[in-house]
């Protein structure tokens, strides 16, 4: 009759898949949990939350801020049914706005009074809808949001997050209070990075968390562990090394002597179509592709006059647009090179 007896002894080991914190990307692991943790963006948030529009360049903590805020407001239990996060990876056409967003906006979920982790959360009587990367929403979808935002304003707050505020239609923007996120200043990003570096017990700190993570992995796994050097970071970050850029500039006839001693010698190899074409081919072969560095070099150059600089800027802007349209890279590198050469030629 053993068959009918409860199998008390056979305890099923529950092997739940929990993400091992050691394997988490640091970007997520160290995403701020509370508003106070958010580096450098000093906004005061009262309990009377308006609709919000966060805008600013990538990596300045917009998403982190709103996630931290809603986590702080609702706590882990209510977070699930009080916050709807939609980003560009979700379908966000007009039909979704009409159905999903509207349905979520109109319901009033009951708050779970006692939080499971024993802390107290304010849990205000509204929900938050986060529309991440809102600048990739279509005009129509944005239009459909207008009335929804007003009708359900009593029980729902919207938070739009975007890079370019100009891509948000005016009626939406005017319904939100805007928060501009400035690029982090070096001290606050350094302090955050050093905090992470301390927590991970490595002594090295550099520009960004991803870079820090990969860089530290690289350095600690080589034996013996070597400290991270700036060139490592440049390679990881995909920045074209200074020397290569200067070399290129020298071929174009830009005097880089002010920056670099080795180039103080009279320019001999500069100018001409063939050397330029050869240099561009060489660069393409090495796999470098970035006009941004040349841009910096030109704009910050001490001896070029404003006219030459603006000509160069025009060329670079045109090239950028062309590349965005999917133009051939080699042709345009050559084009930029030739025209810059022409612009700076005496």
């Amino acid at each position: 009759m053993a068959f009918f007896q409860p199998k008390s002894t056979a305890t099923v080991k529950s092997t739940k898949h929990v993400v091992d914190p050691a394997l988490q990307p640091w970007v997520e692991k160290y995403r701020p949990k509370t508003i106070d943790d958010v580096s450098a963006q000093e906004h005061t948030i009262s309990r009377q939350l308006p609709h919000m529009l966060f805008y600013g360049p990538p990596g300045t903590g917009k998403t982190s801020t709103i996630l931290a805020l809603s986590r702080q407001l609702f706590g882990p239990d209510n977070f699930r049914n009080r916050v709807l996060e939609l980003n560009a990876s979700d379908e966000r056409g007009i039909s979704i706005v009409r159905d999903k967003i509207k349905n979520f906006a109109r319901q009033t979920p009951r708050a779970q009074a006692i939080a499971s982790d024993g802390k107290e959360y304010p849990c205000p009587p509204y929900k938050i809808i986060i529309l991440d990367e809102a600048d990739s929403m279509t005009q129509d979808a944005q239009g459909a949001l207008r009335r929804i935002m007003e009708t359900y304003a009593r029980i729902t707050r919207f938070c739009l997050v975007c890079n370019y505020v100009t891509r948000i239609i005016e009626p939406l923007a005017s319904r939100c209070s805007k928060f501009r996120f400035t690029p982090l200043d070096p001290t606050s990003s350094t302090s955050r990075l050093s905090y992470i570096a301390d927590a991970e017990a490595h002594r090295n700190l550099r520009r960004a968390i991803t870079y820090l993570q990969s860089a530290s992995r690289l350095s600690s796994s080589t034996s013996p562990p070597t400290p991270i050097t700036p060139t490592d970071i440049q390679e990881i970050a995909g920045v074209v090394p200074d020397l290569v850029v200067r070399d290129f500039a020298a071929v174009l006839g830009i005097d880089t002597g002010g920056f670099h001693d080795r180039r103080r010698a009279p320019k001999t190899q500069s100018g001409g179509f063939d050397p330029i074409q050869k240099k561009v081919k060489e660069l393409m072969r090495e796999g470098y592709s970035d006009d941004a560095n040349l841009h910096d070099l030109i704009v910050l150059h001490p001896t070029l006059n404003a006219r030459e600089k603006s000509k160069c800027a025009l060329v670079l802007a045109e090239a950028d647009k062309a590349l965005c349209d999917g133009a051939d890279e080699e042709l345009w590198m050559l084009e930029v090179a030739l025209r810059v050469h022409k612009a700076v030629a005496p």
Partner: protein
Amino acid sequence: MSLWVDQYRPRALDDLHYHQGLSARLKSLAASGDFPHMLFYGPSGAGKKTRITCTLRQLFGPGVEKLKIDQRVFLSPSKRKIEVNIVQSNYHLEITPSEAGNYDRVVIQELLKEIAQTQQVDLNAKQRFKVVIINEADSLSRDAQAALRRTMEKYMSNMRIILCANSTSRLIAPIKSRCLLMRVAAPSDTEMHTVLGHVAKRAGFDLPPEAAQEIINDSGGNLRKAILVLEALKMQSPDLSGPLTIAKPDWETYCQKVAVLIVTEQTPARVMEIRTKFYELLSHCIPPTVILKTVAEAVVGQVDETLKSEIMHWAAFYEVRMRIGSKKIYHLEAWVVKIMSLYKQSFYQFDISEFS
């Protein structure tokens, strides 16, 4: 019997012949456990794909080489069917979203979410995550790239993405900042020399250095091309001695002919002649950009110094137009006519100044 390119492709990171620093780096990353998203970029034939497969092997063991090809059908928002081929193993899958054209966003959204939301159940698996390789990442549309952004962060516990691109300039900044960038430069001449020598040794013959040099000069840093040429030459003359003629592809000689036509005579009749040649090239599926580039380079070789930069300028100009527009032949022809008029102008001015 497969081609030498595939047959002698290195399988493990230790077998790679050049970019040793990169190999060491990839190896340590694969061993570390928290493998980041990666972006491999570099010119074609530099060995990006080889490095990716080697890294995968390092991560998951030989199981990744058991590949199967699957065809999946996705539905676009307007209920159109999009068919995409997926190459996959138990541990990774590989897609070329640009196959789906304008609808690549749908493919990215659906496929990545599906993978991201399934977890590895085999507790003995070497890694918790699955790897998705996205080929031709630089031809992803802007929407598709935006769709990648948050997915890359959110589902990182279940999935890693490896992007493979020719250049980083067409990728949006948020994607770049989420990836570890790996630049794979084309091999230098000496590096190619060793690789070719190695291939020859594996195939069981000796490669004379002159022949190797010839092949390297012709390939322009493209190792795949170099090895293919080597194999072709070996078929032609088994001892690889004496004067070698590396056969140029037909379209290249054809483009050269077009360039000569442009330079020798500038009349409407000539334009018509060139038009038929362009049609011929296009109907043989030579990409219009490649045609334009090859012809432009050939023309530049035959004209005066002052004209060269002009020709390249207009080539770049019409190349963009071609991308935006839909009929390629118009722009190719417009460019030819432009070049002809420029050439004629400069030619006659030059003449007149000499006479007077």
